[in-house]
C-alpha cells in the first residue's frame, strides 16, 4: 500500500533523507522511530506529497504521489503533530467541510460524526469555536476528521501529543480497529511503548537512513536486547 523507492531529500546542501526504501502492506501498522532531526517528519511530508523528494519515488495504493496526486490524496489521511484547523469554525462545520471535500454523503457524515463526537466527549462543544479548544481537543477533532473517512493510508506524526489518558486509550483502540479493517498506518513517534504495543513492524531512522527494520521480535533477536528502549539507545547513541 505504501511503497518508497530510493527516496532522498536535500535541503540546500544537506541531505536529510538518504536512499530510503519502504514497503508497507495493506492493513500493516508500521512505526518509524528516530532521534530528533532524524528525518521522520520530512519523510511523512514527502509521503503525503507536501514536500517533493530530491530523488526517488513514492507510491500510495499504486498511485505516484507526484504524478497522480489527486488519486493518492483520496486514499490518504494525515495527522500532523501541530494540527491546522480553521479556528473560527465550530468542530461540526470543520468536519462538514472535510466530509464535503472527500465526498462523504450527508447521512453517513451525520451518523459518523455524531458517533465520534460522542466517543471523544466533544458532543457538548460541537458548536463552540475551535479557537476556544485546547491542543488536545483540537487533536481529537483532527482524529475524527480522519476517522470519518476511513482512509486507506494513515500517516501520523507524534500521535499522542497533548492528549489525556482517556483519549490515548481510545485512540490506540481505534487505530487497532482501523488496521484490522485494512487501513495501512505509518506512524512517527518518540514514545517507544506505543510502538511496542501497536506496530507490526518497526523501523529506526537515524541521520536520514533506516538503520534497522523488522518486527519487534526480529529486532530483539538481531540486537540481542530485551526491550525496544535498549535497542533504540544502542543504535542511536552516536547521533544524540
Amino acid at each position: 500500500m505504501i511503497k518508497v523507492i530510493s527516496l532522498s531529500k536535500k535541503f540546500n546542501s544537506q541531505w536529510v533523507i538518504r536512499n530510503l526504501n519502504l514497503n508497507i502492506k495493506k492493513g500493516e501498522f508500521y512505526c518509524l522511530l528516530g532521534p530528533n532531526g532524524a528525518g521522520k517528519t520530512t519523510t511523512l511530508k514527502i509521503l503525503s506529497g507536501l514536500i517533493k523528494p530530491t530523488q526517488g519515488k513514492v507510491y500510495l495504493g499504486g498511485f505516484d504521489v507526484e504524478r497522480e496526486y489527486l488519486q493518492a490524496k483520496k486514499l490518504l489521511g494525515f495527522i500532523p503533530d501541530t494540527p491546522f484547523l480553521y479556528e473560527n469554525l465550530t468542530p461540526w462545520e470543520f468536519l462538514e467541510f472535510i466530509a464535503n471535500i472527500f465526498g462523504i454523503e450527508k447521512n453517513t457524515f451525520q451518523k459518523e460524526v455524531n458517533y465520534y463526537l460522542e466517543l471523544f466527549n466533544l458532543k457538548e462543544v460541537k458548536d463552540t469555536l475551535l479557537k476556544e479548544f485546547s491542543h488536545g481537543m483540537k487533536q481529537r477533532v483532527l482524529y475524527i476528521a480522519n476517522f470519518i473517512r476511513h482512509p486507506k493510508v494513515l500517516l501520523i506524526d507524534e500521535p499522542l501529543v497533548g492528549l489525556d489518558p482517556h483519549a490515548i486509550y481510545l485512540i490506540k483502540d481505534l487505530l487497532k480497529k482501523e488496521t484490522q479493517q485494512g487501513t495501512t498506518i505509518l506512524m512517527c513517534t518518540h514514545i517507544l511503548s506505543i510502538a511496542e504495543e501497536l506496530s507490526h513492524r518497526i523501523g529506526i531512522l537515524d541521520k536520514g537512513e533506516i538503520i534497522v527494520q523488522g518486527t519487534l521480535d526480529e529486532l530483539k533477536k538481531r540486537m540481542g536486547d530485551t526491550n525496544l528502549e535498549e535497542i533504540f539507545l544502542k543504535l542511536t547513541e552516536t547521533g544524540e
Partner: protein
Amino acid sequence: MNPLTIKLLSFKNITFFYRRRHPLKFFLIILCIILTIIGIYFALVEGFNFLIHLGGIGSVILKRLLFIMFSILFFMIAISFGILFYTSGVKSKETEFHLLLPQSLPRITYFKFWEAVFLSSWIPLVGLIIFSFAYTKINHLSFTYPFIAIFHFIPFIIIASFLGYITSLGVLRFLNIKKFFIFSLILTLLLILLYKKELTQEKTVLYFLSEKVAFLKFSQLWYLPYSWVTKGLVALEENYWGKVLIYLSNLYSLSALCIIFVPLLGDKFFLPCFYKHFYASHKKTYPTSLWDNILKIKFLPVSLRNFLLKDIKLFLREPALWLQFLVFFGLLFFYFLNLRKFSYHAMEPIWKNLISFLNTFSVLCIVCSLSIRFVFPQWSLEGRNFWILKLAPFSLKEIFLEKFIFSFLPLAIISGGLILVSNIMLESQPSTFYFTLFITLITCFVTISFSLGLGAYFADFKRDYYLKAVESIGGVIALILNLTYIIITIFTFASINHLFLRGKILFLKRVTNTFLVLWTSLSILFSFVILKLGYNKLEKKEY
C-alpha cells in the same frame, strides 16, 4: 462547501462570537466604523468643495487628481496583494492543509488568489465607494453615478491584483536575495536614466499639476488599464454612454482574461514557490552578522541590546517585511520625481501654503503606513514565543522601551530625511522646514505610540502568520486612529495659515505657537494613554 465559503462562514462566526462575548465592544466598533465612514465622506466633500471654490482651475485639478489617484491606487493594490498572497498563500499553514486534500492545484491557487484579492482590496474599495458618493454630491450628478462607478472599481481591483499575482509569483519563483539586489540595482539605474532624460527636457516654468508632470502623463496613458477607470468615470459624468461602455468592456474583458490565467499560472508556478518559501527557508544557515558585532559595543543596557539584536535579525530574515520597505521607497521615487516640477517659488502664497502642507501630509501618510505595517505587528511577531520574553529577567517596561527605540529611531530618520529632501526640492523657507520637521517628529512619536500600544492591546500570539495582524480589527482601528490624528494635525495648522493669508488672523506666529504647545501636549498625553492601555493589557495577558 468550498474554501471560500469556509472563509465567509469563519467571518460570520467570529462576528457572532464577538457580539455575544463583548456586546459593548462590538457596538463601539460598529459605531466607530460608521462614524469613520461618515467622517471620510464629509472630509472628502469639504476637500472637493475647497478645490471647486478655487474657480475653473479647481475642477481641472480634480479630474487630474482622479487620474493620479487611480494610478497610485492600482500599484498600491498590486503591492498589497503581493504581500498578502505571500503571507496568506505561500507562508500559510492553511495552504499546507489544502495540499493534503484531494483538490487540484489550480483550485487551491484560485481560492488563494480570491482570498488575497478580498484582503488587499476591501479597504480601498470602501474608500472608493465613499469617494464616489462624495464626488456625486459635489458635482450634483445623477444618483446612479456611484452605482455605475462601483462597476468600474471591481475589474480595476481584479486587474491590479493580477499584476500583484504575477509579480509575486515571479519574484518568489525566480529571485533570491542576491538576484533581487542585482535586479533592484538595474531597475534603479533605469529609473535614474529616465530621470536624467526628464531633466534634459525644455526648462520652462511648469505650472502646478500641468501636463508636464511625469507621473500625471504616466497615469493618463490610454493603453494602461488604470486610466480606463478615470476615463470611464469622466465620460459617465459627461453622459457619454458610448465611451462608458467602451471603457467598461475594456476593463471587464481584461479582468476576465486575468481570471482565466490565475489557475493556469498557479498550476505552473505556485508549488515551486510554496516549497521554496514554506519549507526550504527553515533550513538556511545564518552565520554571525554585522549586527552582532555592531551591537557588541556597550552603549546600551544588556537587555535592550539583546532584544534589539533579536528584532533586527527577525526583520532582516523576513522578506515580507524588508520587501515592503523597499517597495515604499520605490513609490517615493515617483513622488520626488514630480515634486521637483512644482516650481514652488513661482507660486502665489496661498498655493505655497497648500503645497507645503500637502507635502507634509504625504510624508506623514508614509510615516503612518510604515508604522502600521512594521510597528503594529511587533508584538504579534513574537508569536507563540512571547512566553520567553514574559519569563525573561527583565520588566515588560524594558521590552516596551526597546520596541519603541527600535521603531522610533529608523522612522524618525526616514521621515526627517523625507521632510529635508522635499523642502529642498520645494525651495521652501528655513522656518517652514523647521516647523514641518517638528510636526513630523512629534507625529512619528505619536503614530509609533498608537501602533505599539494598540499592537500590544490587540496582540494575537496564536496567529498563523503574524503579518496578518495588520488586517485584523486592531490593525484597522490603529490605522483609523493614526490617519485621524494626521488629518486633524494638518487641517489645524493649514487652516491657521490659510486664515492668516485670507486676513482673518492677524498674528500668525502667536496663534501658531499657542496651537503648537497645545497640540504637542495633547499628542504626548494621548500617546502615553494608548501606550499604558497596551502595556496593562499585555501585562495581564495569560499564556
